[in-house]
């Protein structure tokens, strides 16, 4: 099989590529350049500077493995489909998951389509997940499991996906990288949103959306408890950074209950008010058969969140999930991913909760 191995410059994708090569496949490594290259086409001598350190780490790993290696420039696609979407979602008061969006629109769409067109049979990545009988399953290392951000993949996409490290623990992957002489063996895991420097999402958003000050309101009384610089910087369920002028009368912590950038309001209240038992989602995608009746399942509402027992049904193209135990802090814009045990059934983008 001809396999394109997406190599981020991290340890997981390096070991994934190594394993595919060991299995006897014809492997080509590719690093996806996703960062914008300012002024790349403007002046006669301008060249973008890209994520050169990660690209170099990926290239070095490919050299050690003895596989061809190229860099594919997907900065424009990434900006249009992931970054712009990220900003627009926050501007609308929702909390997007850009990793999921990237898997849906870049890695397993733009990149996979190009790979198939160029004669490859499959795309291998370093995600912690498994494909078993065409179905997506959680990784063996449950602490590292990334099936949530892959929950958007369709059966067609999964048919061409290889997740070679999904059956291993992170520790095993690091050990193997060291054994193989890969310099990335001890490279720290990446965290946060890859295109937001230093994890400062609020500051990054403010640069793009400007300042939009408004009140922080008490859900109970409607009283103004403080001011904020922009409602878009808040997420439902958030407790820190509320900067309330007045402590609540009962002395209990307050959480963000609602974000309304159009009205410039952030509503806060007690933890009980965060509890939801129904979740509605749009754009359901199914990694297996489309359920034709209410289905008992487990629902996960955020990356690394708990999977809660639930019943899911499809009504007029929308997903409606009834939770058997309440969930706290479910932000619109996040994905609800449904599982049967550790097998993914499908997913949708949360639009409303109740």
């Amino acid at each position, binding site marked *: 099989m001809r396999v394109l191995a997406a190599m981020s410059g991290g340890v997981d994708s390096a070991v994934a590529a190594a394993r595919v090569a060991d299995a006897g496949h014809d492997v080509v490594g590719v690093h996806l*350049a996703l960062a914008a290259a300012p002024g790349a086409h403007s002046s*006669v001598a301008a060249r973008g500077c890209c994520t050169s350190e990660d690209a170099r780490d990926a290239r070095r790993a490919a050299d050690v493995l003895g596989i061809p290696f190229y860099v594919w*420039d997907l900065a*424009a*696609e990434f900006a249009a489909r992931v970054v712009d979407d990220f900003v627009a979602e926050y501007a609308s008061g929702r909390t997007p998951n850009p990793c999921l969006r990237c898997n849906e629109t870049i890695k397993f769409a733009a990149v996979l389509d190009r790979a198939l067109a*160029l004669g490859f049979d499959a795309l291998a990545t370093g995600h912690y997940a498994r494909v078993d009988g065409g179905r997506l399953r959680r990784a063996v290392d449950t602490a590292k499991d990334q099936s949530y951000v892959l929950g958007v993949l369709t059966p067609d996409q999964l048919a061409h996906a290889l997740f070679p490290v999904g059956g291993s623990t992170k520790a095993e992957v690091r050990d193997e990288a060291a054994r193989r002489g890969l310099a990335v063996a001890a490279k720290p895991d990446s965290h946060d949103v890859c295109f937001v420097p230093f994890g400062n999402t609020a500051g990054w958003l403010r640069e793009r959306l400007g300042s939009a000050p408004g009140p922080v309101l008490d859900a109970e009384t409607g009283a103004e408890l403080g001011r904020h610089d922009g409602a878009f910087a808040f997420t439902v369920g958030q407790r820190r950074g509320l900067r309330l002028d007045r402590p609540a009368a009962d002395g209990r912590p307050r959480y963000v209950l609602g974000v309304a950038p159009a009205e410039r309001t952030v509503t806060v209240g007690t933890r009980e008010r965060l509890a939801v038992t129904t979740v509605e989602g749009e754009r359901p995608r199914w990694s297996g058969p489309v359920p034709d009746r209410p289905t008992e399942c487990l629902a996960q509402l955020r990356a690394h969140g708990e999977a809660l027992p639930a019943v899911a049904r499809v009504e007029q193209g929308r997903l409606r999930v009834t939770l058997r135990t309440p969930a706290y802090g479910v932000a619109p814009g996040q994905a609800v991913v449904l599982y049967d045990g550790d097998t993914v059934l499908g997913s949708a983008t949360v639009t409303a909760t109740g």
Partner: protein
Amino acid sequence: MTYLDHAATTPMLPEAYDAMSALLGQVGNASSLHAAGRRARRHVEEARERIASALGARPSEVVFTGGGTEADNLAIKGLFWARRAADPRRRRVLVSRVEHHAVLDAAEWLGAHEGADVRWLDVDAVGRITPDVLRDALAEAPDAVALASVMWANNEVGTVQPVAELAAVAAEHGVPLHTDAVQAVGQLPVDFAASGLAALTVTGHKCGGPLGVGALLVGRSVTVAPLLHGGGQERDVRSGTLDTPAVAGFAAAVDAAAREQPQRAQRLTALRGALVDAIRAAVPDAVLNGDPARALDRRLPGNAHLSFPGCEGDALLMLLDARGIECSTGSACSAGVARPSHVLLAMGADEHRARGSLRFSLGHSSTDADVAAVAEAIGPVVERARRAGVRRP
């Protein structure tokens, strides 16, 4: 393996390999006063004489450097600083839009950090600077021009510039003209004295010598300020202990390349013609970029640069690489991202044409078998690349 990237680097000639390897085990700093130093110096000075003789220069005009990029930087920055020191009004730098980044970025750096007023010289549709373009740029403010730089032959599309005519125009105003001739030496006749140039860049590994060594030919009456300060080697223009074996290998390569140039140019012209014909037979809508003329004063004999409509250059390169054919898409950023060629954009090509192009460059080791390999592969490769299409976000 089909190696068609000689413009990137070409295999060492046996003469160069022999000259270099004979000296690798010998001790001696060419600046030392004892016997070992004298022995090393003799090799260096013989090398200087061979290069001067092969390129129509005087030995004292040869300044050894660590390669073409350093020689270009020395020319652009060194001429700028020296000319501005002589007359502070001279801040203008005239540079063609199709230069290698070693010239472009050096000029941009002067603009950003040294107050240089960089003016870009436009090219025509085949990538050529006409004498009138230079004349007009000079006439605007002749006393304000520090230097001009136009390459001898373009590394991407192979267009040969009328350097002697351009040098004559520059001389009318007393402005020094530098040329980057790294692609020309060995493929075209290069005569420094006859060209009327002030400075000329040559490098070892593009003409069959070792990597990491080059020279700037600097006319006797021309002053350049140094980039490197230290022991005062190379007329105080380029300090640093000379790499005696590399310099000897470089000289052997330049000497052989210049001697064999007429026959090689003739052979490569025919081979390049066959390559372009074969590609067009397999891909009728492929477009030859640059000057279509075969004459040596128009196009490098070893250069074939083509655009393939509906394809991305990086897809073509990858598919050819998988079939053992090595060529180039032009420039890439430090992370390896292929960029649309600034040369093609300057020639008026749209971004799709600029992105969908490949450079095949032939050299002394190229054969009919290389042409046959491309002829066989290019049709299926282009068809496959077209399935992936072009990027449109």
